[in-house]
């Protein structure tokens, strides 16, 4: 049996909107393909591990307070994380995790939290705490050359700008900023997004895209995850597209 190693960063702090569900879904979909997902975690104060040992690095979303508290620790991991990124580890980042990998995040109290600077984008939230992008969202992404509608729920005060390669174009909802055309950030080995819900629950092909990427990289051969029973997911998507894309 193959094993995929996932590093869950700050699971006790970046877990605002059921974000740990993404790990549960990856684990489930791996298991259905006879792949074992081994989950490790990094919390504040842990030694800076060799992050390139992991196949996937995952960061969820958190409240402003938690992001403030963990920022310092995250900066200590900067070299190890960018080493993993350069070597091709897959990065999945939601909301706060997305923001912290950019240049900086200026929170709703006006406090500037430095990001890891892995990517060029930067984020600033309105100091009016009531001004947030909240609601169901559908974006059109391209996975392995195929268009795929990704459904989720966004709830963020942060407005992210200077995104060179977005995750998708917005079909319904806000995206990176209020009424923006684009959402998230993507490279072949990176998906960074404001979509929770959790993200992977209603987008099984996105989860399989990650599994395919990781397995292909590990084995050196093109890997395509075998279809599994996704009847519930398909019906769910159908129902929501009808509702949200009218």
């Amino acid at each position, binding site marked *: 049996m193959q094993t995929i190693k996932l590093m869950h960063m700050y699971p006790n702090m970046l877990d605002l909107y059921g974000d*740990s569900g993404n790990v*549960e879904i990856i684990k489930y979909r791996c298991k259905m393909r006879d792949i074992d997902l081994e989950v490790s975690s990094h919390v504040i104060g842990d030694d800076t591990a060799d992050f390139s040992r992991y196949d996937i690095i995952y960061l969820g979303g958190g*409240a402003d307070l938690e992001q403030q*508290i963990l920022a310092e620790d995250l900066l200590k991991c900067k070299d190890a994380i960018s080493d993993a990124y350069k070597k091709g580890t897959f990065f999945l980042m939601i909301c706060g995790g997305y923001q912290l990998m950019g240049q900086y995040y200026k929170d709703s109290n006006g406090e500037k939290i430095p990001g890891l600077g892995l990517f060029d984008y930067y984020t600033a939230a309105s100091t009016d705490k009531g001004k947030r992008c909240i*609601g169901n969202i559908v974006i059109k992404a391209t996975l392995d050359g195929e268009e795929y509608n990704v459904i989720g*729920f966004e*709830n963020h005060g942060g407005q992210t700008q200077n995104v060179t390669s977005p995750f998708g174009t917005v079909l319904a909802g806000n995206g990176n900023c209020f009424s923006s055309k684009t959402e998230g950030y993507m490279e072949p080995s990176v998906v960074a997004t404001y979509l929770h*819900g959790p993200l992977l629950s209603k987008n099984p092909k996105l989860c399989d895209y990650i599994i395919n990427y990781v397995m292909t990289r590990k084995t050196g051969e093109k890997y395509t995850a075998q279809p599994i029973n996704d009847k519930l997911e398909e*019906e769910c998507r159908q129902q929501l597209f009808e509702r949200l894309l009218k």
Partner: protein
Amino acid sequence: MGLKNGLTIFFGKMMVKVLRLIGKDAGNAPGLVLWTLNKDCLKAFKVECPIIAVTGTNGKTSVTNYLNHIFTSGDKKDLKIITNKQGNNLDTGICSLLLGECDFHGRVKADYLVLETDESHVPVIYSKLKLETLVVLNFFRDQLDRNGEVETLILKVKKFLETYEGNLVLNADDPNVARLGLANPNNKNVHYFSVERYSGATDQPYEVGEGKYCPFCNSKLEYEYYQYSHIGKFRCPNCDFGSARPEVVIKDVDLQAPSFVIDGEKYKPSHNSIYYIYNLGAVYTASKLYNISKDVLHDTFEHFEVNNGRLEVFEVAGSKLLVNLAKNPVGANMTLRVMNEHPGEKELLFVLNDNLADGHDVSWIWDINFSVFKDVTRVVTSGSRAYDIAIRIKCSGYDPDKIVVKPDLDRAMESFFSTVGDKFAIANYTAIQPTRAAIRRYKEGTEDAND
């Protein structure tokens, strides 16, 4: 009464009268209109009796109903209590309630007002109506898209409490609540309650929780044990937080009996869930402030039922069904605990809506711990987000072939009751009343058919 206040009340009363004349239940509308016209409209009411408010994420409706029952029990049957039993707990709802009850001068005549109050509305309402007692039960993550982050909500209530000097009944075992006792160091009327470790408590957290860090010094809180979620015996290793001496301590909790001991007396409650016992702790502590007799408390704890979708029992077509409202992960986890502790095979119905009052965001279902399913032979899901909850349960490792999705409630009931046995139902906020109605419709339908 000032001219503006006088006009406000006059206009409001007329509105209620007209609505009643045309046969409409006044509901929330008059309060909403009044609030829009005059943001200070609550100041126009003259309330001379004590106001008791109950707030917190979970248990507000139950505790309010218990207090209402207790205040009119024993030798106090003639007392007039004004209360929002149905959980109409926002500023506009409470405004509508008072409009319906007051005279044309805005006078509200009652012995007590017992008001369930939404956490985020506590400051706006009680900066205008004089509050005598505030009961705070707990703070959990709940409808984040509507309420914002839990911390924001707590800070709102804390700010109000900084100048509040009335009675404050607080759950000492919830760090999010206990911290409020320090909001106003001059308030001498802070009363904490606590529940001693029970058999289901764990050394490590079992369900998702908030309040992992000390609100005063950001140190990680240390727990001796967790009763459920982040409720338990905690203390901050760095500062004194967590050292408050509770005035009411529930001891010897025995969920099998069920029974517990307070102030040396044994009580036999009608339900056996730990979160329900915390609710009774709050009820007891508030009752103490109003010299309620022990006989009334014994009788209430043993016999009173809130029903209304709160641990409500139905007998349908040979099956026994327990229905419980769950608006957030902690509420759902509690029902799953009750279900798992129930011996033998059972089936679960989960009704999930995503209407405005539920919060449009249903991602909270991923914080429910479904991996603990024990002897659950089938799951039926329903509501506008029936598929979301089905996927959630599937990804916890449950066989998708045992999940039946029926977004329409009546179809869901047909499927749910197609087998006979022990059943449990969880429904979220806007789903609970339609679920109860659908159960009754199904029950009546089958009983008619058997006539």
